[in-house]
């Protein structure tokens, strides 16, 4: 029996001589990531373990993004601790103004290679599966162990094969692909499994769009969402890394726990209603819902592709008087590129507030929280109760076209009605 891409990667990173779903193996990591929330907690746990050295400083990355720029003294202390610890251990530290949101940042910097293993103290570490890596979120105690020993325990997951066919419509993006998957299997439907994306429709997605797809794999309960590396992956890595890598693909006789099909010819722009990402409907089903805040940004949809889509929708128009629009380029590099391309000017002219890269408005931490009774349409990944501020607010998830269209209309609307 052959192996899936995930099984091959785990096998190559463990001492096991074969792997199968359900087996527990110790897996070696190529990159260990943490942020200002999970890093300091991991350092505490590492101290309790009695470990004073890290396994390999060159394989560790720390990013200040959740409470950066520090919203208060307590947040400032966490970021200071992250920085001092990184300096003391010779580990790369991305401070505000130098990096951005961790997942978009690591991919952009060429730190994620196909076939590698990335773990992060953040559930959306699954984003890196877009590059053909096995990447997964862990808690801080797990991360402490990874920092000290460079390995973690892992239950070998099964694989759900998602075949994407057809062609995307004008306002359909990667976000809709993953929302369609979550709609099919539910918020817990991927537990104990990875999602593997194959087919012409998957290969046609750009790296930016693949990031959005993999990013929400955890919203289906999956360990990760993986795109086996192809020419697009190779082209993206060209000039970003000097390291060599080999694409990893599933064997033709690999076994899958389930197979799904997404037909893009039959998929329109989608929206996930509160308070669960599995509450997926078409835009028309919720059209007319008043929207008080729009957020374009975060680790799933803060790329150049998303900023271009948002700018296209608002160009020459005004953000509706009922609505605030917040745009968060995911990294400093994207921010600069968007300035150079004139996108930021278009957005600001329309009345959007453009923020420095930060997680703030995504997790309700700061800079963009919702009041009771307010509705938000955001390109983020979670619409849980209280996710972005008041538990009596509502968050709808959608792609950047849908979000920016809502900003102009002040309500959920089919993007085709805003830009015919």
């Amino acid at each position, binding site marked *: 029996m052959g192996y899936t891409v995930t099984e091959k990667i785990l096998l190559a990173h463990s001492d096991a001589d074969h792997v199968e779903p359900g087996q527990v193996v110790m897996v070696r990591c190529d990159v260990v990531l943490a942020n200002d929330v999970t890093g300091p907690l991991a350092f505490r746990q590492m101290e309790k373990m009695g470990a004073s050295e890290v396994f390999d400083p060159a394989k560790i990355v720390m990013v200040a993004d959740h409470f950066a720029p520090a919203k208060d003294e307590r947040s400032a202390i966490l970021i200071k601790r992250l920085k001092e610890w990184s300096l003391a251990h010779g580990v790369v530290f991305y401070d505000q103004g130098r990096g951005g949101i961790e997942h978009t940042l690591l991919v952009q910097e060429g730190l994620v290679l196909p076939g590698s293993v990335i773990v992060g103290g953040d559930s959306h570490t699954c984003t890196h599966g877009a590059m053909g890596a096995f990447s997964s979120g862990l808690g801080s105690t797990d991360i402490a162990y990874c920092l000290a020993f460079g390995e973690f325990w892992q239950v070998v997951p099964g694989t759900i094969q998602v075949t994407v066919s057809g062609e995307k419509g004008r306002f359909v993006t990667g976000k809709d692909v993953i929302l369609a998957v979550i709609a099919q299997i539910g918020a817990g439907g991927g537990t104990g499994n990875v999602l593997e994306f194959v087919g012409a429709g998957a290969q046609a997605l750009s790296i930016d769009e693949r990031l959005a797809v993999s990013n929400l794999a955890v919203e289906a309960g999956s360990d990760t969402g993986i795109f086996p590396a192809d020419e697009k992956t190779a082209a993206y890595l060209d000039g970003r890394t000097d390291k060599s890598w080999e694409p990893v693909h599933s064997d033709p006789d690999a076994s899958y726990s389930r197979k799904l099909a997404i037909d893009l010819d039959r998929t329109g722009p989608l929206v996930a209603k509160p308070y*669960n990402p599995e509450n997926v409907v078409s835009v028309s089903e919720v059209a007319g819902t008043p929207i008080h805040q729009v957020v374009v940004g975060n680790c799933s949809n803060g790329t150049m592709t998303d900023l271009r889509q948002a700018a296209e929708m608002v160009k020459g128009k005004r953000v509706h008087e009922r609505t605030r629009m917040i745009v968060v380029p995911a990294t400093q590099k994207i921010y600069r590129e968007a300035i150079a391309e004139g996108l930021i000017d278009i957005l600001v002219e329309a009345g959007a507030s453009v923020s420095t890269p930060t997680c703030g408005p995504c997790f309700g931490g700061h800079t963009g929280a919702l009041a009771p009774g307010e509705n938000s349409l955001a390109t983020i990944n979670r619409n849980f109760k209280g996710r972005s501020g008041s538990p009596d607010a509502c968050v709808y998830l959608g792609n950047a076209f849908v979000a920016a269209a809502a900003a102009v209309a002040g309500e959920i609307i089919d993007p085709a009605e805003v830009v015919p």
Partner: protein
Amino acid sequence: MIATGKAVVVPGTNVDTDILYPGIYLNIDDPELMKPYLFEGLDPSLRDQLVGDTVLVVSENFGMGSSREHVPLAMKASGVRCVVGSSFARIFYRNCINLALPAISCPQAAEAAKAGSEISVDAAAGTVTVDGREFSAAPVPPFMLEMLERGGLIPWAQHKLARS
């Protein structure tokens, strides 16, 4: 490993870690200081039931969402000795095991338990007793059992360091 306590029932399926511990309190890194925010987005009054040793009774896909270890850390600091439910989200489950907080899948026991029920869980034997009625739980894989018996990933790491 045997855990006992009074049942505290957390209602609902797909209970996510954001409502169990909202993001705004993530800049706290001392478990004692996390306690006042556990269940904050769901039902803060649940905290009043956390007196003495308790066992949380939950439903399906409990703990979905974020990797925030604040949730099981605050639970442990508040006297929660075990979580019994139908099913658990992956990262929440891992965090529990790493902190030696047994998360046991036993839908029948979760169904039978009421607030205040006396619960006893024997992870190795795979049984959950609710007010004297015994139910068999899904077996805990040997690796996770060993992690629980050793007291979690911290003692596990200490042991590894001592050997090297």
